[in-house]
Structure formats: structure tokens, C-alpha cells
């Protein structure tokens, strides 16, 4: 996994609540047996109409917006556990997703793929959307070490929570398998003495 520390970039707004993982990557694209190529189909049915034409007013298609930060509405990533959703967002080039609320499984999947979910207050989320609306070129800085997100050129910033263990993993590029394998002996001992 890639290491993550500070990330500064422009952002793409997606001001829709309850974005589910079926929208992020529709099920018909889940037939692959590797992790590659999902980025091409991220938000497929919002980016393209049925005939394959690009939907010009969808923010990911709007030339006004660019960047590797996605700023999304409340309850992002609900629904299916498909990790393909995280692979698709990473594949498209996103490094950070900001929302006022994330669904559990998606949040875990994102963290396991070096994609940082930043949960902010609803009020700060509104500031973020307003900042992009005012100037699409606005830069945002996400600092994992200090756990803060700020709108560059303003004094607006907010801190965010992250599990300390997950933070260490992100900063160092470790994943859970490394940790669990280091616990093999304890796990084997547990198996021998479990009494349920």
C-alpha cells in the first residue's frame, strides 16, 4: 500500500446524499478477477447515458472540475460491500474522499486501499462545496499527521478523526495482513483453548 501523509489538490464536488456502491461501480462490471481497470467505469451510469454518451453536467465530466479529492454528500458508500468501489475510485485517481458520513464497510475498504476517507461536519462540508462553487480551482490540503483538512487561501479548516492504528498503517503503508501474520502464535494458542 502507498504511504499517505499530506495531500494538496483541487477537488471534484458530488453533492448527492446516500451515494451507494452500486452507483460507484455497477454490478455488471464486477466480473473481473483482478483489481485493474475499475477506474474506467467509476460512476459509469452517471457519467454516461445508455447510449454511451458522456453526461456533460455530471461533475466528473465537467471540465471545470479536476483533482484527486472527491467531496461528496452525506452517507457516502452505503450498500454493497464490494471493494471494487474503492478500487474504482483509486483507479480513477482519487486519493481522498470527503463526506459528512461514511458507510462502515466502504470506509474500511477505502482505508485498506490507501484511499483516505475524511469525515467532516455538515457545516464544514457546506463550506467545501461553497468554496468549489466560488472557485473551481480552489486547493484543499489534507494532513493526515495533524488530522486536519483546510481550504487553502482561507482560514477555514477542520480536524477529523481516524482510528490511530489505521492512521499508522496509512502513514507507513502497512496493511492488516502484515499485522495479523505477526500474531500467528497467539491465534494458534487461541484456537487450542477456545471454549465456545
Amino acid at each position, binding site marked *: 500500500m502507498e504511504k499517505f501523509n499530506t495531500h494538496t489538490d483541487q477537488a471534484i464536488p458530488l453533492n448527492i446524499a446516500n451515494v451507494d456502491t*452500486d452507483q460507484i461501480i455497477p454490478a455488471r462490471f464486477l466480473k473481473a478477477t*483482478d483489481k485493474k481497470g475499475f477506474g474506467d467505469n467509476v460512476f459509469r451510469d452517471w457519467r454516461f447515458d445508455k447510449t454511451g454518451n458522456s453526461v456533460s453536467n455530471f461533475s466528473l465530466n465537467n471540465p471545470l472540475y479536476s483533482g484527486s479529492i472527491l467531496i461528496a454528500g452525506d452517507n457516502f458508500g452505503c450498500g454493497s460491500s464490494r471493494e471494487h468501489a474503492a478500487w474504482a475510485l483509486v483507479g480513477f485517481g482519487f486519493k481522498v474522499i470527503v463526506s459528512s458520513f461514511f458507510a*462502515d464497510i466502504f470506509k474500511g*475498504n477505502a482505508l485498506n486501499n490507501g484511499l483516505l476517507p475524511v469525515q467532516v461536519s455538515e457545516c464544514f462540508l457546506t463550506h467545501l462545496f461553497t468554496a468549489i462553487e466560488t472557485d473551481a480551482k480552489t486547493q484543499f490540503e489534507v494532513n493526515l499527521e495533524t488530522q486536519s483538512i483546510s481550504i487553502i487561501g482561507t482560514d477555514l479548516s477542520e480536524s477529523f478523526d481516524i482510528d490511530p492504528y489505521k492512521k499508522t498503517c496509512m502513514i507507513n503503508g502497512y496493511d492488516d495482513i502484515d499485522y495479523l501474520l505477526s500474531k500467528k502464535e497467539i491465534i494458534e494458542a487461541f484456537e487450542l483453548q477456545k471454549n465456545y
Partner: protein
Amino acid sequence: MKKTLFDKVWDTHVVDTIQDGPQVLYIDKHLIHEVTSPQAFNELEERQIPVFRPQQILATADHNTPTLDQHLPVKDELSRKQLEQLSKNCNKNNITLYELGHKYNGIVHVMAPELGITQPGMTMVCGDSHTSTHGAFGTIAFGIGTSQVAQVFASQCLLLSKPKSLRVSVNGKLKNGVLPKDVILYIISKLGTNSGTGYFCEYAGDVFENMSMEGRMTVCNMSIEMGARGGMIAPDETTFEYVKDREFAPKNEEFNKKVAYWKTLPSDEGAAFDKEYFFDASDIEPMVTYGTNPGMGIKISETIPMNNDPSFLKSLQYMNFEAGKSLINTPINFVFIGSCTNSRIEDFRVAANYVKGKHKAKNVTAWLVPGSKQVETQIIEEGLKDIFNDAGFELRQPGCSACLAMNDDKIPQNEYCVSTSNRNFEGRQGQGSRTILSSPLVAAVTAIEGKIIDITKQLN
């Protein structure tokens, strides 16, 4: 200290705790299927890590399978390759696989309980968010991502922070025609799609106590639709009776010993929950959804609420519905009875009981997709197939089918489908399709009428 059912099962499975961090939780059973496992097998292979406990893993093929002509090679090349990959991976790693056509094949959340693999007090995971289904047995069961599938392959454990606890109690007597699906759709419509995020939910009260295991599975199945990673119901005589004598259930003295243990699992009187909700059974009616998330549900006799939120309006626009209007008399051309929510024998009995002696409306395509080979066999043995055939319904072969638009079974663009599945997201059943979630009874009635009708009038 007084403990909840969830605490009791969780605490016995904690192998280790990281200071200020997650816990190492031991997983008893790991269910896998073709869609979310291949990348996990690849990961292990690349890192040269062996599968740690293959005998605790069970595989089935369900998401990406056809529901017609299962004896023939799978036509779609990508699907066929994905299924072949599952066979190869299981073979190589000594994992039991009930592949397409096997007498135990079926939707992972239907076949595992019916084989007695799901048992009270266990921890179970699967790369599928509806793993919450197994909580009906008093099991901690939840969906995981593919990275976590790889973690369980490697160590039979997961790193998790203990979720908070939530209890939803429903007491009283359910009205005639109100099914477990209506109960859970009602709960989600009241609490919303993210009320359970960060929580494990226990369902309590006499409504659940009086429910069959099939009904409890329907309820727990949809826990994830309110954001809860899992849902649980305390094991009782109904649970023990269901598990007893099933293929992989403990037998004789071992079974008795297990039952004695399982009886200790229900939440202690006075155990504290982080959040509690109470509902009255008599307030619940047959439900339908009108929007694009499972929380957007109403009683079939109600009208769509008014709301100016842009996401709400976007949703109604997608569904081509109007706020303030009723769904009654909406013409429906597609009906789907199936999915891990409602594809068990009881669901088909309910449908058959209503359909018997009637015929579907001309405009309707009505698909019945059993959750497993065993359910399919039961449908035939109980004579339900004849009833459905006479009524013009199409009984297909087991699989996830039209629940997720991944296999061949898709609902066409702009068409409504009254569906017993679990998600009404945009395009969930096919690009541009519009899903209305309901119970198998409402689905069966809709197929006969060719439109949504107010069945409460018939029932009362």
C-alpha cells in the same frame, strides 16, 4: 457486568487487543463466492501466504450464475472465467465448493443456514454485505471487503473495533398479511439508511420471538440497509429446532451440549444498549418503497411524503413518481420473487397460497428464483411448482438472479419491478430499471393484478 447477546459472542472471540486500536477477532466460518474472492486469492499468492484454515471456509457460486440451463456451459465469457477461477482457487487450496449444479449450491445466505453451517454463537464473515442474514441464529455475521477476505484467508482473524450496540424492539400482534419483510422495511423507513452505521443491531420483542427462522433471516438480512454491519436475534427453541439434524449441525450429545451453551447467549436482563428503538406491531402494514434507497418506504395505503431535499427529488425523478401521490394502480410489468432476502421455502409458500387458482396479468413477467437447490427441490415436492406454472409464473434455477443485474437476469430500462430483494438503488436490477421493494405477498398480488393494489382492503 450485564452483557448483550452481541457482547457475549464478540468477547469470546477476541484473540488480542491493540492498545488504542482495534481487536483481533477470531472468525469461525468464512463463506466465499466468485465475485469478491478472486483478488483475495491473488493477493495471497503474490505474497506467498498459504490459506490458514481452509476447512473453515465454504464456497458457493451464486452472484454471477445463470438461472436457466445451468447444466450447460455458462455463455457469458467473463462470468464463466470468474466461476472457473473460483473452482481453481478452491481446488488448489482444499476449500469445499458447492458449484453450479451441486445439490447444495445456492445463494450463500440461503444455503449455509439450511445446511446447518450457521450456528448460534459463531462469528461468520463473507465478502457480501447481506452476511448479516446469519445473525438470525444469534451469530455475529457481517459483510467484509476483499482485503478482509484475504486477511481471513491468511489468519482466520480480522482487525476490528467493537461496534456500538443498538436494539430495536417490536412488540404486539402483526396484522394479517404483514410479513417479516414488511417489519424490516417499516423499521428502515422509520430509522433511515444510516441510523445503524457503527452499530450491531439486536432485534427483540415478541414479534421476532414468534417469527420462523426464515422470517428472522429476512429481517437480519436487511440490517445493512439501515447501515448496521449486522443484526442478531437471540437463539431460542425455534433456532435449536431449525438447526437440529441439518447436514453439518452437531449431532446427539454434542448437539445437546451446544444447546446448553446457546441458551446462555441471550442478552442479560437489564444489559445496556447504546441506542434503543421501540415500535408497535399493530402500526405496521404491508410496505412498498417509492425511491432509490431502502429507507424510502411507505405503507402501501400511504402517499409519498413531501420533501424538498435535492437528493430526495433526484430519487423521485429517477422513479418517475410524484411526492404526495399514492403508488396504488401503478402498472407493473415485472415481478421478482427471490434474492437472499426472500427466496426461502416459506416465501414461495406465501406466494403460492395467494396465487393458487389465479393467473398472472397479461402484462406481467413474473420470475420466481429459489435461493438454493434444496429450496428448488422443496418447491417441486410440495407441489408449488404446479401452482406457479398454472398461474403463468416462471420458476427459474437458484442464484442471486435479478437482485443485482450482474448475471443475465435484468429488468429493462424505465420498467418498474416489484421485487422481494433488498435494494432499490438506481439501476440495481438493470440500467435504468426502477425497483419497488416489497414482501413476497405484495409481489404475488402485483403479478396477478398487473398493478399495485391496496391489499390491506382484501386482508381486512
